[in-house]
C-alpha cells in the first residue's frame, strides 16, 4: 500500500508508463518488418498501427497532447487505413511467400549501420548542453499548448511550413498525373 502510494504521488506512474510505451513501440516496430509468425502485409500494417498508437502514448507523456492526437488522427486513422485499402486491393500473396534474400540483408545492414553510427555520434557529442550553455536558442515551449504551436508555425517557421504544404500539393498533382492512363 505504502509503495503504491509513493508510486502515485511521486510521479512513478509516468516512468512506468514510459517504459511500457517505449517497449511497445520498439516491439511492434520490429514486428512490422520482421515478424517470425506471419509474413502477411496486413499483419505488418496492423503492427505499424500499434507502433503509431504507442508512440502517441509517448507524446502524451511528454505533455505534447496536440501531437499525440494528430499522430493518431493522421497516421493511424487515415494513412494506415489507406495502406490497408491498397494492400487488400492488390492482394499481395507472393509477398507473404517471399523469403529474406542475402542481398537484402547486406543492404539492410549497411543502412542500419549508418543510421546507428549517426545516433552514436549525436549521442556522444552532447548538443543539448551546448545549446543550454550558449543560450542562443530559446527553450522550446510546446507543452501541448495548441496556441503556442500554432503561433510558432505561423511566425517563426512559416517558410518551412509553407514549403511542406507545397511539397504535399506537388505530390498530389504528381499522383493524379501518373494515374492518368494517357497523357495528352
Amino acid at each position, binding site marked *: 500500500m505504502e509503495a503504491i*502510494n509513493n508510486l*502515485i*504521488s511521486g510521479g512513478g*506512474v509516468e516512468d512506468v508508463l514510459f517504459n511500457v510505451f517505449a517497449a511497445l513501440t520498439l516491439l511492434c516496430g520490429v514486428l512490422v518488418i520482421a515478424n517470425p509468425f506471419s509474413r502477411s502485409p*496486413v499483419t505488418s500494417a*496492423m503492427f505499424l*498501427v500499434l507502433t503509431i498508437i504507442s508512440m502517441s502514448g509517448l507524446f502524451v507523456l511528454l505533455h505534447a*497532447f*496536440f501531437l499525440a*492526437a*494528430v*499522430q*493518431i*488522427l493522421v497516421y*493511424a*486513422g*487515415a494513412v494506415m*487505413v*489507406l495502406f*490497408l*485499402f491498397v494492400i*487488400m*486491393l492488390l492482394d499481395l500473396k507472393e509477398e507473404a511467400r517471399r523469403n529474406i534474400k542475402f542481398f537484402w540483408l547486406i543492404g539492410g545492414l549497411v543502412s542500419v549501420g549508418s543510421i546507428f553510427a549517426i545516433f552514436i555520434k549525436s549521442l556522444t557529442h552532447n548538443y543539448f548542453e551546448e545549446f543550454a550553455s550558449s543560450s542562443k536558442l530559446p527553450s522550446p515551449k510546446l507543452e*501541448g*499548448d*495548441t496556441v503556442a504551436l500554432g503561433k510558432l508555425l505561423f511566425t517563426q517557421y512559416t517558410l518551412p511550413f509553407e514549403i511542406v504544404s507545397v511539397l504535399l500539393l506537388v505530390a498530389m498533382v504528381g499522383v493524379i498525373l501518373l494515374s492518368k492512363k494517357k497523357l495528352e
Partner: protein
Amino acid sequence: MDWNFIIFSVVKVAVVFGVLMTMVAYSVMAERKIAAWIQDRPGPNRVAPPFVKYIPVLGPFLTRIGFFQPLADGLKSFLKEDFTPGGVKKIYFWLAPAVAVVPALMTVAVIPFGSVMGSQKMVIADLNVGILYTFGIVSLGVYGIVLAGYAANSKFPFLGGIRASAQMISYEIAMGMSVIPVLLIAGNLNLSGIITWQATHGWLICYAPISFVIFIVSALAETNRTPFDFAEAEQELAGGYNVEYSSMKFAMFPMGEYAAMLASAGMMVTLFFGGWTLPFWCLDQPAHSLGMGLAHILVFIAKMLFFMVVFIWIRWMVPRFRYDQLMDLGWRRFLPLALANILITAIALWIWS
C-alpha cells in the same frame, strides 16, 4: 495524482460505461419501435418474463412497449452457436468485433455529460485537445469493419470492408473540416471550454449552421447508418462485413454501431447545442447542489436521446445512396463547402473582433 482522483475516475468510468451500455440496448429497442411506427406495424410487443403479467397496469404496458426485448435479444446472442467458418483468418476474426466496439466507448471519455456534482467535474478526462482526441479515436473505428471484412476471407464481407475504408476516410475529412469554424468561434479545443462559451454567448448552431449540417451527415456516414450503410448493404452485399459472424461476435458490431451513434450524438450536443446547459431556469451555470448537477446530466441525456431519435428516423425515411453519389457528396460538395465555411467564418471573426 492522488487516491481521490483515482477512485472518482474509476466510479465515473463504471457509471458512464453502465449507462452507455443500457442506452445501447434500449437504442436497439427504440430503433425497432420507431421503425414499426413509421411502417405502421406494432413492433416488438410481447416479450416478457413470466411474472410480469401479474403486475396490474405497468406490466402489460411495459410488455407492449417492448421493454424486455433487449434482455431477450442479449440472451439470444449469448446462447446462439458461435460458429467459426473454416477459411477465416482466426486472429483477425476474433479481434475485429472488439476493435469495432472499443473506439466507440473510448470517445465518450472526453465528452462532458454534466457540470459538477460536489467538487467533481462530470467528465471522465477533461483533455486540452478534446475534439482532436475524439476525431483520432473515431478514425480508429474503421479498423473493426475493415478487419472483419478481411478476416472473413470471402467476397461479400471483403467488398464491405473495402467500401467502409474508403467511405470513412472520405467523410472523416469533411467532418474534421466542418468543426473548424466552431473551434474558431469558441476559441478552444477543450469541450468543457466550448460548453462554457456557449453558456454565455448562445448555442453554436446559431453561429455555424452549415457546420452542423455537414457534421450530422458525416456522422451518419461515419457510423455506417442508412443512407450511407454501404459496408452492410443487405441488398447488394448480403450483409457485408458481418456475413460470416454469428452469436455474440455478430452482436458486437451493432453494439459498436449504436455506441458510436450515442458518442456522435453526444458530440453534436456538445459542439452545437450547448452540452448540459439550457438557457433558462438557471441551468446554464455550473451546479451548486447535487440536484442541479443531476438536472444537468438529465438535460444532456435528453438532448442526446433527441439526436438518437433523429438518427433512427433518418434511417427509416431515406433510401440508400449510390456509391458514386456518396463519394461525390463527400469530396465534391462537402469538402469545398466546409473549406468555404472556414474561410467565411475566419473573415467574419476578423472583421467583427
